[in-house]
Structure formats: C-alpha cells, structure tokens
C-alpha cells in the first residue's frame, strides 16, 4: 500500500471512533441540562450532527412536562410519573376539555402553587395528531416535521414554537412540585434552530 494511502486510512480509522466518542460526550450532559449547539461541532458529518442535536432536544420533547399534554388518548397525564390526570378530565372536542369542566376553569393564567395547580393563559391539550405518547424519538421527529401533523408548521416555524411559545415555555417554570424541562427554553430553541440548519435529520 502506498504511504499516503496508509496515512489516509490511518486518519480515517482515528477520526471515526473520535467522532463517535465526541457524539457520546456531547449527549452525555446531565439529564436536567441541555448540551450547547457548539458542543456538537465536533461531529463532522452534517446529517449525524443534525440527528445528534435532535436526540439532545429529545430530552425536552420526552420530558413529562411536555409529554403529559401530548397524550395519545383522551386524557392528559400529570406529574413526573405521568399518571392519568386526576380529576378524570377529558380532551373534549377542542382540546380544552369537556363542556362541564373546561381546562381553564381550574388551570388559571398562572401557576397556583398553594393548590399545586399549574397554569397558563391557554392551558389545553395538544391535538391528537400531535400525540407523542408511546412514540420513539424518531417517530416524534418525523411527526414534528410533518405539516399535516404539526399544525401546518414549516420546520422554521418550529424554531419559534419551541423557542418562544408561551405555553411551551411553561415547561421551564412549572411551579411547585414539578421538575422543569431540561435546560432553558432559549437553549431548546437554539437546538431546534441548529437542527433545522443542519437539515432537520431524524435519528433512527
């Protein structure tokens, strides 16, 4: 084998595990924190970097603060253990509850810690087509990119939705007795933006 070919082969053998190790190190941030966008720069392959960024964002998307209101069925879940919501409320026709007990009747515009009731001005369930419960991260990714299932949003609009939406932002200020989503909404928004810019690749 020619010397330069052996050097190329040697470098390739070195780089491959290094990039795998870098990806591992990047996603090794504590569960309550989000890795920075910059920490993924060591992943040279753009598609791999994109998928890794989404995997990190998945810590937010699959967190109980988000998952509890993206149920597959008719009932929201609650708490860090994602038990079925008590009282036994239901989705209703519009995601704001049944006529007899609409979500905003108990869930006011802000958290009410003395009763342990979280709040936001537009407290409601995500539409059924945006259910994440029971799905893999890859399936959530495909769904989140699909305008037919993400509220007709472009991937660019997802940056604003996850990074700036007020109800989404509640996940990071959920009130007494609830763990906030990992990192901050700003960090999550940065990850979404970086994911979009790298081609919005879904993990397997």
């Amino acid at each position, binding site marked *: 084998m020619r010397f330069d070919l052996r050097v190329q082969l040697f470098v390739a053998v070195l780089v491959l595990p290094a990039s795998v190790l870098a990806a591992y190190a990047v996603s090794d941030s504590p569960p309550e924190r989000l890795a920075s966008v910059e920490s993924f720069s060591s992943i040279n392959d753009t598609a791999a970097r994109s998928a890794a960024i989404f995997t990190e964002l998945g810590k937010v998307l699959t967190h109980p603060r988000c998952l509890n209101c993206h149920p597959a069925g008719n009932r929201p879940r609650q708490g860090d253990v994602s038990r079925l919501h008590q*009282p036994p409320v239901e989705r209703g026709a519009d995601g704001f509850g049944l006529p*007899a*007990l*609409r979500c905003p*009747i108990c869930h006011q515009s802000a958290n*009410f*810690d003395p*009763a342990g009731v979280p709040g936001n001005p537009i407290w409601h369930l995500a539409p059924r087509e945006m259910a994440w419960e029971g799905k893999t991260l890859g399936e959530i990714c495909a769904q989140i990119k699909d305008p037919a299932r993400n509220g007709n949003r472009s991937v660019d609009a997802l940056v604003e939705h996850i990074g700036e939406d007020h109800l989404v932002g509640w996940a990071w200020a959920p009130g007494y007795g609830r763990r906030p989503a990992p990192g901050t909404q700003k960090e999550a928004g940065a990850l979404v933006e970086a994911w979009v810019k790298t081609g919005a690749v879904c993990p397997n």
Partner: protein
Amino acid sequence: MTKLSVTINGRAYGPRDVRDELSMNDFLREYLGMTGTKFGCGAAQCLSCAVIVDNPDGTSYTSPTCVVPAASFDGKSIRTVESHAKNGELSVLQKAFITHFAFQCGYCTAGFLNEGQVLLERLAKKPVARADLDKTIAEALDGHLCRCTGYIKYHEAVRHVILADPGRYLS
C-alpha cells in the same frame, strides 16, 4: 397582594386586598363567612366547592373554588348556594331535592344544587329532546362526587323539575 372586586349573589364585594395564594374557597368561607360552599377534596375532584360563574353574555358555568385563587375571580359575578332561596322561599330545585330525599349528609349538596341550576338555566335557553334528557342530566352532574346517596335521587330530583315544566326545558 392583589385587589379583588367580585359580585357574589348580586352584591358587590371589594375592592379589597387579598393574598395571591388565597383560594376562592377560603375567601368565601373564612373571609366572608359564606360556609354554604364546602371544602371537600381540595383537588377539584369532588366539586362540593363549586360555585356558579355568570358570564356577561348570560351563560353560566360552575367552577371549583378549592384550587382556584380568589384573585382570578376579580371582576366576575358568581352565585353560591346561598343565592338559591329568595326571601326565605326555597327554589324549585331545592324543594325537589327535599321531596326526593336527594341528599343525606349534605356536604356535596351545594355543588349539586349549583350544577343543577346551571343545567336548568341552560335548558331554558336551549331545550333538549325528551329522549336526550337522562343523558343530558348525567353529563351535567358528572364529576360531582357523593359518598352517601348513590346519586340516583339527585338525578331524579333534577329530572322531576324538568319534566314538571316540559314546555320550558324540553323541545
């Protein structure tokens, strides 16, 4: 502290300062001495704490008061169980509850009365077919918990009031 102005049973209260963490249930019972509204579970499950909230458009709904801050009722108009009887005369629904022996300990009764009253007012504006009546009553009273009665006589009392005036409540 937050300023609270609220109309209760037709009477204006406030503006007065209330602590942000004060529940509406505590405001009614502890501040105003209106103990007809009960505190049951403290988790909006039993609905013995429910009061009627009157919208400006003439519609009404019931709201728990145990998990809802008093401050969130600022500017609203509500009715408690104390509003049903007028000048010592029990309402038609209250009388039906008595004749049907709908309640036993009475702890859930305020919530059932308020919910039943909201249903009657809704049907008076938008009657339902006789065939849909039982389902309508069941859906309206759903969520109110009772440990004593088994619910049947509450339903019968509400049905009695409606069937006694079908021209008003049924289509």
